[in-house]
């Protein structure tokens, strides 16, 4: 038993081990981000569609589903962040003296700012959870945000989203966060194939394009909601 744990802790202690965990948790988060966006886009299908979707998430497995997902996501985010912070600290320590003249030949700006885009996204996630999940500092938990669906009283997700994004600062922060997420993904998605040892000479260019396309998809899809509401008055 301890031999197994010794080996696993050595794996985590190693540079490649941590990176593999970052890639695996990153992959999980990529899937989540996609699913979350698709769900959110139901807002364009009208109040009933998104409210039903919200209700489904809340009641799956007798209400346990959402908690399993939340714990899973929390673990993924936690490992992703802790490991990257440790890696970043090691990386800084590995190059104590900086060059008098810095230059880079092929690395993208996104790849050089992963830790900053990542930490800003973390700040956004906390705000986002407080805003729409815990719903502090707003009325979203009040009776005004209940509605009836198929004879059941459910949370009015639709109204919450419309009202939430009608407040310009929230939308602007959201859009900024999505742009950073897109930057993060544009390096992260193709990068995870490399770290997991899955890229080949043939597939690497495809993964790279896939990463860029995915990042674009996420930013367009997610930003369409606040922009539609705030700029074009959708649902207001």
């Amino acid at each position, binding site marked *: 038993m301890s031999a197994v744990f010794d080996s696993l802790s050595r794996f985590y202690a190693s540079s490649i081990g941590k990176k593999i965990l970052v890639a695996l948790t990153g992959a999980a988060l990529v899937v989540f981000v996609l699913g979350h966006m698709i769900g959110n886009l139901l807002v364009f299908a009208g109040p009933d569609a998104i409210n039903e979707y919200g209700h489904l998430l809340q009641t799956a497995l007798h209400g346990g589903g959402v908690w399993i997902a939340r714990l899973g996501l929390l673990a993924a985010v936690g490992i992703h962040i802790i490991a990257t912070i440790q890696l970043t600290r*090691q990386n800084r320590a590995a190059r104590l003296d900086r060059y008098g003249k810095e230059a880079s030949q092929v*690395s993208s700006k996104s790849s050089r700012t992963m830790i900053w885009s990542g930490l800003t996204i973390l700040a956004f996630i906390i705000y986002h959870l407080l805003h729409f999940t815990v719903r502090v500092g707003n009325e979203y938990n009040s009776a005004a945000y209940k509605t009836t669906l198929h004879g059941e009283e459910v949370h009015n997700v639709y109204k919450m989203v419309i009202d939430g994004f009608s407040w310009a600062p929230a939308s602007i922060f959201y859009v900024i966060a999505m742009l950073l997420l897109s930057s993060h993904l544009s390096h992260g998605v193709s990068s995870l194939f490399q770290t997991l040892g899955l890229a080949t000479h043939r597939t690497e260019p495809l993964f790279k394009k896939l990463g860029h396309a995915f990042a674009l998809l996420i930013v367009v899809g997610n930003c369409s909601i606040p922009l539609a509401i705030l700029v074009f008055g959708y649902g207001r």
Partner: protein
Amino acid sequence: MSLLNLQLKVWRQNQGQPGHFQEIQARGIPDHASFLEMMDIVNERLIKDGSDPVAFDHDCREGICGMCSMTINGIPHGPEKATTTCQLHMRKFRDGDTIWIEPFRARAFPVIKDLIVDRGAFDRIQQAGGYVTVRTGAAPDANSILVGKEVADAAMDAAACIGCGACVAACKNASAMLFVSAKAGQLNSLPQGQPEKDRRTLGMVRQMDKEGFGNCTNQYECEAACPKEISVRWITKMNRDYAIASAKEAFVGTTERTEGGE
């Protein structure tokens, strides 16, 4: 042939002491000279003036020994692709240019003097598994080990690494992944290297970590700076080999390994 007047900003440092940039005017440098010959000319003048010449590593001056090691204008071995400092020629620069000349910077490459750094970490990584355990005289006939041409060619691609350390110097994390992966990858991809593959991968990666190199963040500055154009796909392979070796180490016992034919 024309002559160039250049302004050099050269890193000067004595072992264990903080360093600084020294500005040196390099006038009348023939554009046919190599970069190191330019340094020779500069040094000759410094010696004449009674100053301390700039110490730098160099040996074969034909791009194969891996000894030369300057970061020129922020890029290890300078701006020309697939070229070591010793093969870089002054015609790549213009009259009036300012040239920054710095050592290969990394915590794992401590400065010995000026532009000379200690790359002993590379030797220690190789000692941790970068070999096939074969006793002299115990080898079978060379043609009894068949290696397909494609495999042999790929192994040669990895083996072309000259161990100069430009990959470390170019990486913003001072990671040695390109070097280590090329060295491990050469042997891990050949039949001769199979029996020790896992042991080699684990040993070399652990020694790499111990030496204080950073981690790979998949930005591939290493590949761009590599004078032998070693591909980052070797890093992909090492990530894979390491994951498999770690999993086996954690979950597979000796009996199962025996069954697996190892």
